[in-house]
């Protein structure tokens, strides 16, 4: 008998060691050849930007010139694609413009320019550049010049450096009378930039326009934002023309620097350019695919998770954290010895906590449990049959969730709205079990079971909500194999549970 256990344990240990060796090799391989990282950030944000240019040809030879983003410190260009049938494509590296030319055409034209940018978040800095020429003061009539100088005077009372001061003055709410009379009635970003440039020129500060995108997920089409760059202390510094804030906002990609136009179309009219932006966290795995292609290991990559469409990847990412959560449950039950309600209930609770956020989730759970238990106690007086009774509890839970959400929305209390993320059936069973345990074994036992379940759920939550752990479990999914054998090996653990050390303490001979 003893021999038998030993061999089972031995076999499982060997498998565990093999799986560890395999995982280590795979991790090495993925890091080395596919460029995976352990930290989620570096592997993360990949933006794809698509510019859609459309115009009607006039019957002359066509020449389209489009500004493209430069590879810079903040963003690396992973991939650049032009879809333009029948065009000769040329790239002017120096000015970073894409030039497309073709014979005269008759139908309306559509050109797509697509790039993928990799957010190189760590190296974002200021751009050092050689000094530009001193700007020439704008040609204003005397009256306008006086007004402009008055504005510069006023600006000094604002916060920040000279550039910020000017921008803030122009965007003040409400505008001062002098500013209001200076600004034209019709104001757009372009005009605003011109006004700021003029004012800075008076101050002899060189400046230029910058065009870029605030990269935002789920925003289908957008227009480029204008920003202004001023040359101060040997650096081009960039300013938001609305807030006067210095520096690039988060997730802002500069498409174009300097005064050139965004797009020029010769031989066409009614030209329109539309941009769309998509953030794909997991498509950074595509980057790995590209690397794999280069190093001839495509075959292997094609059969990996990272080659799947994004939606599936996201589902799998969620799934690949489960084994770790299960491991925690096994440890908590068989090694620590906590009695919980239902084996995997704490895990499911932890999963909902991830969706709701910790504080909101705990509050919601407490509210649902309190209301649910009180209703269940009233209901126990009716002596209903099991299935109708648990069904009634399910409906009550749904009603509680609905009212929490509605009340939460009404009072703009976001916490309550997270109620919908709790698994309804699981909540109903927790309430049912808690109330039966309460009636049969007393409040103490019921309270203890809920308490232990929550402890396990919270521990699980903190592990699976950790960005690093989630990333690692997905990027290096071989680790799940290690967990599998670890769990099986734990199935042969015959040592004492932590709680038993306390429970059987009286048996220790003094």
């Amino acid at each position, binding site marked *: 008998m003893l021999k038998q256990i030993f061999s089972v344990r031995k076999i499982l240990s060997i498998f565990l060691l093999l799986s560890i060796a395999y995982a280590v090799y795979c991790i090495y391989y993925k890091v080395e050849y596919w460029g995976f990282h352990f930290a989620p950030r570096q592997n993360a944000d990949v933006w794809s930007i698509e510019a859609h240019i459309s115009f009607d040809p006039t019957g002359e030879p066509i020449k389209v010139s489009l500004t493209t983003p430069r590879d810079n410190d903040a963003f690396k260009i992973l991939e650049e694609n032009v879809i333009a049938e029948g065009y000769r494509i040329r790239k002017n590296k120096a000015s970073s413009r894409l030039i497309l030319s073709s014979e005269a055409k008759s139908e309306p034209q559509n050109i797509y320019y697509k790039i993928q940018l990799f957010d190189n978040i760590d190296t974002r800095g200021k751009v050092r550049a050689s000094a530009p020429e001193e700007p020439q003061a704008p040609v204003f009539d005397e009256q306008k010049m006086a007004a402009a100088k008055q504005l510069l005077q006023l600006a000094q009372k604002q916060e920040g450096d000279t550039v910020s001061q000017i921008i803030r003055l122009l965007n003040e709410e409400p505008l001062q009378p002098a500013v209001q009379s200076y600004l034209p009635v019709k104001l757009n970003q372009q005009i605003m930039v011109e006004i700021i440039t003029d004012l800075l020129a008076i101050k002899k500060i060189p400046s230029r326009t910058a065009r870029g995108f605030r990269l935002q997920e789920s925003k289908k089409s957008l227009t480029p934002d204008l920003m202004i760059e001023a040359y101060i202390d040997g650096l081009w510094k960039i300013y938001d023309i609305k807030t006067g804030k210095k520096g690039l906002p988060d997730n802002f990609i500069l498409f174009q620097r300097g005064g050139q136009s965004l797009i020029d179309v010769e031989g066409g009219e009614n030209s329109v350019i539309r941009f769309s932006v998509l953030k794909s966290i997991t498509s950074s795995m595509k980057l790995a695919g590209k690397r794999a292609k280069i190093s001839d290991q495509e075959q292997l990559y094609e059969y990996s998770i990272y080659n799947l469409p994004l939606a599936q990847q996201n589902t799998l990412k969620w799934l690949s954290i489960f084994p770790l959560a299960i491991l925690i449950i096994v440890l908590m039950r068989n090694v620590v*010895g906590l009695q919980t309600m239902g084996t995997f209930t704490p895990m499911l609770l932890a999963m909902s906590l991830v969706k709701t956020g910790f504080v909101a989730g705990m509050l919601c759970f407490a509210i649902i449990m309190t209301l649910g238990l009180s209703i269940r106690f009233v209901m126990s007086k009716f002596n209903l049959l*099991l299935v109708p009774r648990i069904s009634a509890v399910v409906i009550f839970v749904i009603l509680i969730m609905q009212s929490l959400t509605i009340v939460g929305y009404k009072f703009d209390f976001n916490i309550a709205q997270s109620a919908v993320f709790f698994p309804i059936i699981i909540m109903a069973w927790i309430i049912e079990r808690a109330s*039966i345990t309460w009636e049969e074994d007393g409040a103490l036992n019921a309270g203890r079971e809920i308490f232990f379940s929550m402890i396990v759920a919270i521990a699980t939550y903190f592990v699976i909500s950790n960005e690093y752990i989630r990333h690692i479990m997905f990027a290096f999914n071989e680790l799940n194999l290690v967990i599998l054998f670890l769990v099986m090996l734990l199935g042969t653990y015959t040592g004492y549970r932590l709680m038993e*050390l*306390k429970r*059987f303490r*009286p048996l220790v*001979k003094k």
Partner: protein
Amino acid sequence: MFKWLKSFACPKELAAAGVLGMNRRNFDVISKYNKRCLYPLVDDKVKTKELANKVGINTPGLIGKIEYQHEAKNILDIIKGRSEFVIKPAQGSGGKGVLVIKDYHDEIFVTASGRELSYNEVYQHISNILSGLYSLGGKYDTAIIEELVHFSNIFKDYSYQGVPDVRVIVYKGFPAMAMTRLPTKASGGRANLHQGAIGVGLDISTGKALHGVCRDVPISVQPDTGADLMKIEVPFWREHLIIGALAYEMTGLGYLGADIVLDANRGPMMLELNARPGLAIQIANGIGLKNRLQEIDNTYPSGLTAEQRVDFVLQKRAK
């Protein structure tokens, strides 16, 4: 902080005391000696009763059983002419769903705790049993109605209401450890230790009290009646052990717990069997179970009859 840590034992100390832990019980004992296919024999009390009667173990008489919801109304016919009985789920565990009726007349049911129930409430209770509220895994269940045990006066001072019983752990057919479980006010008249009943370890060779425990804390006086627990001596001790030993023959389970009650008129009777008896019996006895089991593994003979095994244990332990 250190004081709190001191409430934990070192695993080595427990091992030295021969304590059997939950993991080892499940892995080394239950999964080895209790075949899964044998579980239904003890999980279903109707089957257990039939088997027990075949091998000659005394059990409380079966008055009737109700299998389907539409039969629940037959309860009044089944109990006609009786004033006391017990309604319980056939597949219940841990005393859940057991309704002890002490006095019944004119459709009024008086429970052991003195509560009066109407016909509707009893009907509801039976209905709950049938719908699987008390059964393992919520399966549809059968309600059984059996004769009330008139437990011997011996335990009168030691328990508060309910039915006190004797739990014998039988390993490979040899009685290994025993305790008596005494209901208290806190346990609501039920004989389950985790509900607050008292466990008193019994000397396996004599049936005399060794050591008392309530909620994992040592105890020597019954808190409700003030009786001295250490004076307990269970009569018909050999008969108790023989029931346990026969249960092994009857079920084939290598590790089982036999719950035995002492009826004033009919002597020891088997109430139910358990294929996964708990480990609290070690605390009640103040002794670890692991060494006992190992001793049985290594030195006890095989091929004996139930009575021979009991006599072997009585002799061996008497020294």
